[in-house]
């Protein structure tokens, strides 16, 4: 609420023809429209196989090193397709993600135009809760954080600034503030209902509460499980049934249980591929697919159960298998192996940069480590428990919920399986629980004699630590530890 209505006329707005950079102005739905356009383009271009690969390699100098005025929008899309480091096989797999992206966001735009009701789901809510309806568009506001770069990294800052202007404190996780800001800037459509979550983190639950308040939409709160034990998962899955019943009542629509069953089958099959991809990353040298798993994580949050994602996982799996069978063909160097014990490092292309600059390979992170228990298909109840468990094993939720043991066990397991040479934690600002684990994580690393870098970056707020700063800190660390000269 910056100015009252009609104020701008009185205020005599000065002309801005002097080249001053004004606060970024976003047209309503600009970002989603760009994403849909970009993903459609991706679907077309990536179809060209080796030609697409050659093209992406050729433009690397323009888009790889830093963001500037000219490459602002294109750079993000470029990072998404692997910054020119991906092989044709990986590009073919990502094409499937593009297809899923188009279907997800196109539906959101359709819902905006009134074709069907839109339901907001907090990101730890299984998307199945809404996607099982035939005529309800699911939307995960936090997915917005993954795409706001579509207009350059200022897109995130624009959303964050909108939230700051609204007078909401900036100590909530930037991921949630970006989605709130996107709503305030009219980048995402109004919901017909909201499904919130109470766990795994305070920021998520606070953001849900604010969204319920701002939109005034009817809401149901899911009390996510604290532990992965059967009792807790059972209680959690009961919450999911209740959430579906709540949506049926609120939206006056019937849930299509057949669609649910189909989706869960696809999910389970996709999970099997993801498991194996994760295991291939554990090989020495690694299959180097952590970034691909990151992509899969993002796609799964929004489009779990989409057959295109299954296809994507299958093709990625194929790439991994090829690499492991023909280690000679892959000329990638793997000087040292890194585990990122947190969200991926601030800017998504950082893995590619590390690999290119230092020969270090990120073999796993909270997201790029996807091992899921199989789903029992025998009844709706067991399937729902499987869906609930699937979420509990998803990166970030897996580590953030419950006690520190969840994080420590996970890190211990990663260290045992991925044989890393160092650990990096980017410590995003709003993540209170993770920021409180410094000593514990340090002690784990110390026990394994692994160097640890703790950064003070924020996942999407480049004002906390810019890309340059992150690169500087990583460089210093690699030098200090003798990984680079």
């Amino acid at each position, binding site marked *: 609420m*910056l*100015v009252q209505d009609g*104020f701008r006329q009185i205020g005599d*707005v000065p002309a801005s023809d002097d080249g001053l950079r004004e*606060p970024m102005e976003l047209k309503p739905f600009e970002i989603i429209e760009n994403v849909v356009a970009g993903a459609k383009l991706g679907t077309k271009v990536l179809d060209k196989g080796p030609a697409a690969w050659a093209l992406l390699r050729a433009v690397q100098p323009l888009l790889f090193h830093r963001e500037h005025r000219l490459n602002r929008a294109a750079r993000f899309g470029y990072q998404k397709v692997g910054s020119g480091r991906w092989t044709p096989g990986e590009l073919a797999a990502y094409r499937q993600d593009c297809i899923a992206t188009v279907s997800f966001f196109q539906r959101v735009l359709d819902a905006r135009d009134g074709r069907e009701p839109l339901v907001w789901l907090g990101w730890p809510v299984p998307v199945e809760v809404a996607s099982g309806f035939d005529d309800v568009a699911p939307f995960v506001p936090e997915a917005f954080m993954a795409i706001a770069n579509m207009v350059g990294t200022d897109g995130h800052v624009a959303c964050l600034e909108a939230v*700051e*202007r609204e*007078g909401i404190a900036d100590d909530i996780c930037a991921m949630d503030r970006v989605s709130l800001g996107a709503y305030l800037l009219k980048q995402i459509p109004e919901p017909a209902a909201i499904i919130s979550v109470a766990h795994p983190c305070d920021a998520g639950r606070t953001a849900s509460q604010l969204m319920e308040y701002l939109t005034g939409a009817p809401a149901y709160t899911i009390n996510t499980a604290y532990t992965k034990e059967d009792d807790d998962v059972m209680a959690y899955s009961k919450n999911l049934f209740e959430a579906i019943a709540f949506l049926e009542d609120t939206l006056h629509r019937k849930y299509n249980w057949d669609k649910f069953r189909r989706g869960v089958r696809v999910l389970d099959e996709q999970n099997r591929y993801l498991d194996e991809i994760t295991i291939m990353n554990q090989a020495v040298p690694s299959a180097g697919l952590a970034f691909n798993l990151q992509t899969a994580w993002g796609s799964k949050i929004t489009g779990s159960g989409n057959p295109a994602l299954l296809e994507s996982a299958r093709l990625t799996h194929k790439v991994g298998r090829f690499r492991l069978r023909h280690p000679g063909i892959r000329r990638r160097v793997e000087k040292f192996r890194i585990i990122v014990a947190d969200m991926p490092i601030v800017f998504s292309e950082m893995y590619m940069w590390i690999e290119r600059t230092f020969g270090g390979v990120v073999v796993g992170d909270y997201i790029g480590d996807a091992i899921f228990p199989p789903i029992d298909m025998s009844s709706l109840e067991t399937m729902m428990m499987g869906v609930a468990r699937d979420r509990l094993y998803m990166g970030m939720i897996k580590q953030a919920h419950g006690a520190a043991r969840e994080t420590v066990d996970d890190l211990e397991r990663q260290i045992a399986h991925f044989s890393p040479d160092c650990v990096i934690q980017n410590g995003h600002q709003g993540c209170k629980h993770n920021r409180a684990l410094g000593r514990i994580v340090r002690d784990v690393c110390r026990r394994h004699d692994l160097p640890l870098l703790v950064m003070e970056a924020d996942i999407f707020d480049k004002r906390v630590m810019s890309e340059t*700063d992150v690169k500087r800190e990583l460089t210093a660390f690699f030098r200090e530890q003798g990984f680079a000269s």
Partner: protein
Amino acid sequence: MIYAGVDVGSLTAKAVLLRDGRVAAWHVEPVSATPGESARRVLEAALEKAQARRDDLTRVCATGYGRHEMTFADLERSEISCHGLGTFTSNPVVRSVIDIGGQDCKVVVLDDAGLVDDFAMNDKCAAGTGRTLELLARTLGVSLGELGPRALRARRALPVSNKCSIFMELDVMQWMHQGRRAEDIARGITASVARRVAALAGKVTLRPGVCISGGVSKNAAVVRELELALGVRFVPLAHDPQIMGALGAACFARLEHERAREHDRRVLRASDPVSSVDAAATPDCAGCTGGAP
């Protein structure tokens, strides 16, 4: 009748004397020794300029960080109220004040009487204040006064985006190390401070008639950036923007005096109906009539 307002901030002390609704004299000097001592000195200096004596003062109002130490004051008001009423007195169309001082930044929204209706103030972080500009100007190797003119000659704004003012210095240094133009860095600094202030302003609903006060209002570049960021053009003030707090305090001294007199009259009227004849006497200050309840 003379009313005095004394504003002792963290860096400077200011005094304003109000006679017949006009600013009779004012004085500004750096804070010295204790706030009480500074206040006394600055008040004496203003009295000297107005050729008046201490006994001529009807009422004295204190404001600023040092307000609690001024034992001689008859009343005290917060800087926020004083800045509001001061700017309102200086230009009666003012309804919103953006005050960027040394350590803090305030946005005050006024009612039609010049009293505070709503306000926002920077908390925990000092980025977006005069001190930040000063620190960054020093890093850049220019004086604070020179920062504005430099920024106005810029071709573009180099982002100085870190959230902490101390670490904004690192951003500035980085640009310097790369040999970028000082003008463009200066513009980056002013733009960044302006954005902070605009974010703060977003916490309240501004009313038309926005003005800017405080030391930073003398920095043309920041003022320009702020106008852009807020989408408004600031209304001018009749007095030096630095003395708004003290001026407001003086107006509060006057208001308080009138309230007391009104109260006495009412008491008097109740006991002696005849004396109510002079109750219609006009207030002696034309500038801030709106302040009366």
